[in-house]
């Protein structure tokens, strides 16, 4: 008995010394802070859900979850909205609340939790929750979402990001291989003149936009703005006028990124081009005879043929997927999809192949990427996969296991104690 009391005292004094050592963490471990943060999280989810109707899922994610704070305007259609709508309300963002929750939980872990067998379940539950939060952060930072379109009977070895474009130059002079040089959106957004040893010329960015309206300029009038400077390529032959447009975050939004750029050989200008990125992938330009060259605008320099295109950011894979067959089924008498199915062959390195059926909720997993059935057009004989790469995909599973073990431990511990106590009380005197 006295041994038990000594051990308990020793553990309490260990907690006391930790609290002294990390005194600055004590206010951060406050349960009030936890409750405040959880309440704010609920407000954040509520506001983002309302805003999702207006700006779409991606817009709400960017504005409220992938930021430190977001600005919300009380909806006009709500009671008193005509007066309150004008007031901008700052809402703490996902990064701020998530970060503070991690700090709060970690501080509590250090300054309040006793590392005893009795409390081990609580520790594991909290550790699991911390891992969930960190896992979400890792997903935000590292997850990449792309698409892969394959025509029936053909194969594809690259994926294209849903968001973000790149200016790609391809030297196609040699028949067997082509050299590709890509300039990412970040650099295009910065503007200025781009020099790289991989290109024999310089690129002067004149105007870049993530979305635009493009129209054929009526005869007798001049192209507007920077489009008037275009004197080479499709922009000139199709006589296109470009009007800048805000990025459309809605799920149906089609963003045509555009770039007006000049190519310089030393100080000599080779001309100014316009390039447009098709939101569904630049192969779609081929459907439009006048604009088909947007997929490959030729530039000849020093006896070499380069093709330039502004396209969705592309990643080449060391393997390819061949589409053998597709099938889509609908609920009888409706246009509600019942099943989309792609019969594919995965052509891997060393001539290895693997046949697979990809359909709703049954993706193909290979080399760290997951290929989900995304879209299909049976009439046009093609399928589109949504390709997800998430190196942190395992963290939520580990977190859930930790929380489950913690709960099991905690309840079992108390159950055993309760049963013991009961059996002791039941013993006849």
């Amino acid at each position, binding site marked *: 008995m006295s041994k038990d009391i000594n051990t308990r005292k020793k553990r309490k004094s260990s907690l006391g010394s930790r609290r002294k050592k990390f005194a600055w963490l004590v206010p951060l471990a406050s349960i009030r802070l936890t409750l405040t943060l959880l309440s704010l999280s609920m407000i954040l989810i509520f506001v983002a859900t309302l805003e999702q109707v207006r700006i779409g899922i991606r817009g709400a994610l960017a504005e409220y979850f992938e930021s430190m704070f977001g600005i919300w305007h009380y909806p006009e259609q709500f009671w008193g909205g005509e007066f309150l709508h004008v007031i901008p309300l700052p809402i703490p963002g996902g*990064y701020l609340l998530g*970060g503070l929750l*991690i700090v709060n939980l*970690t501080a509590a*872990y250090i300054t309040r939790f006793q*590392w005893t*067998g009795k409390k*081990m379940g609580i*520790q*594991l539950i909290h*550790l699991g929750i*911390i*891992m969930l*939060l*960190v896992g979400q*952060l*890792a997903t*935000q*930072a*590292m997850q990449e979402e792309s698409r892969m379109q394959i025509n029936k009977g053909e194969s594809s070895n690259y994926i294209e990001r849903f968001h973000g474009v790149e200016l790609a130059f*391809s030297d*196609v*002079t*040699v*028949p*067997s*291989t*082509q*050299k*590709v*040089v*890509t*300039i*990412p*959106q*970040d*650099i295009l957004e910065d503007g200025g003149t*781009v020099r*790289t040893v*991989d290109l024999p010329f310089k690129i002067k960015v004149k105007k870049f936009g993530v979305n635009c309206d493009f129209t054929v300029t009526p*005869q*007798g009038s001049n192209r507007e703005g920077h489009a008037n400077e275009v*004197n*080479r390529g499709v922009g000139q*032959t199709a006589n296109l006028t470009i009007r800048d447009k805000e990025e459309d975050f809605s799920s149906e939004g089609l963003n045509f990124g555009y770039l007006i750029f000049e190519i310089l050989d030393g100080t000599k200008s080779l*001309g100014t081009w316009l390039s447009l990125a098709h939101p569904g992938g630049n192969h779609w330009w081929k459907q439009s*005879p006048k604009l*088909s060259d947007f997929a*490959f605008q*030729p530039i*000849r320099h*020093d*006896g*070499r*043929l380069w*093709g330039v295109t502004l396209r969705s950011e592309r990643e*080449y894979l060391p393997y390819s997927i061949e589409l053998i067959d597709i099938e889509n089924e609908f609920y009888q008498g409706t246009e509600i999809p019942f099943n989309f199915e792609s019969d594919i062959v995965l052509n891997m390195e060393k001539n290895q192949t693997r046949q697979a059926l990809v359909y709703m909720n049954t993706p193909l997993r290979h080399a760290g990427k997951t290929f989900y059935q995304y879209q299909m057009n049976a009439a046009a004989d093609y399928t589109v996969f949504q390709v997800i790469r998430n190196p942190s995909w395992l963290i939520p599973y580990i977190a859930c296991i930790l929380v489950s073990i913690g709960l099991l431990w905690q309840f079992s511990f108390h159950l055993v104690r309760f049963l013991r106590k009961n059996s002791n009380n039941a013993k006849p005197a």
Partner: protein
Amino acid sequence: MLLGFKISQFILFQTVIVSGCLLLFSCGEKKEIQSYEIPSEYDGPVVTWELPDQWGENPDLSGPMAGSFHVKTELGPMGRIGVMPFRESVSSTDVANMFGMELGQSTISDDELKKISEIKLIEGREFEWILLSDKSHEGSTRAVLLALFRDKGETWLFPFIADHDLIKSQTRNFESFLASTTLRAGAIEIRAKAPALPPPPPAHHTHQNQGPTWDIPSHWVKREASSVRLASYEVKDVNGSTLDFSVTSFPGDVGGILANVNRWLGQIGIDSVEQDGLKKYISPIILDDKDAQLVIAEGTTDSLYAAILVVEGRSWFFKITGDRTLAKVEKSNFLSFLDSVCFH
């Protein structure tokens, strides 16, 4: 038990460190320029070249032209050299007639072509070499040198249109330019189609072969149509002055408006113009509810009236040229003719 605590402590601190790194990573990541090689995906035709120092590039590229150049001289840019890739193996006679017509030559037969053509071996490749002279005006020094290269069912045409002396002095440069070219046939269909034989001339007031119809002034005298000319008429006055009227049609835009207008200006002794100077000679008109361009150019002795219309990727040229005074008289008849043009 102690081991369990140690492990949970370790995981906790690792988690904190990882989350810190992730925050830094997500805020600071900036993508770089990438360069890599892939197996060739491009299956279109490849045409590249290196220009001689004395040549300059014309920016007004359009239609089937893959390149367009001029010779830099003290008097400014002179001549016109082009690169035209064709999808098919084009008949040399058709090509020669296409250019010969513009030089006022009568239809060239296969036998006649043999006399004015030769095979030149340049850097191991065989080019068909055809030299055509201007027959439309006496004393004209304009000429066309055509170089044709054929490979795997495709044809590359390099026309050099200039003064005879300029062509002669630039022949070596032309050869070195041809030697520098990389010419590779494409696997996919490209827009630059071969100038297929034109449809037979449409009958007056009929709706044959879905070609256009028109009304010809009764005093215009019909001449024999050729493989290139869909319709050919002559107008004469009592003084013996003549006008030549023709209707021609080609796939694509045959080098674009500037190239065609400049070629016509040269035929009536007017200097070539740049894109800005084009406005002096062209104005928009409507032909059969379609946007078209009317060309009016009046030289010292000769004039030219023409209309250029592009319908479904095909260029139509309606042109009357000849004596300046007679052209003025016939101008209203020509405009009435344009009004009557109807595509069905």
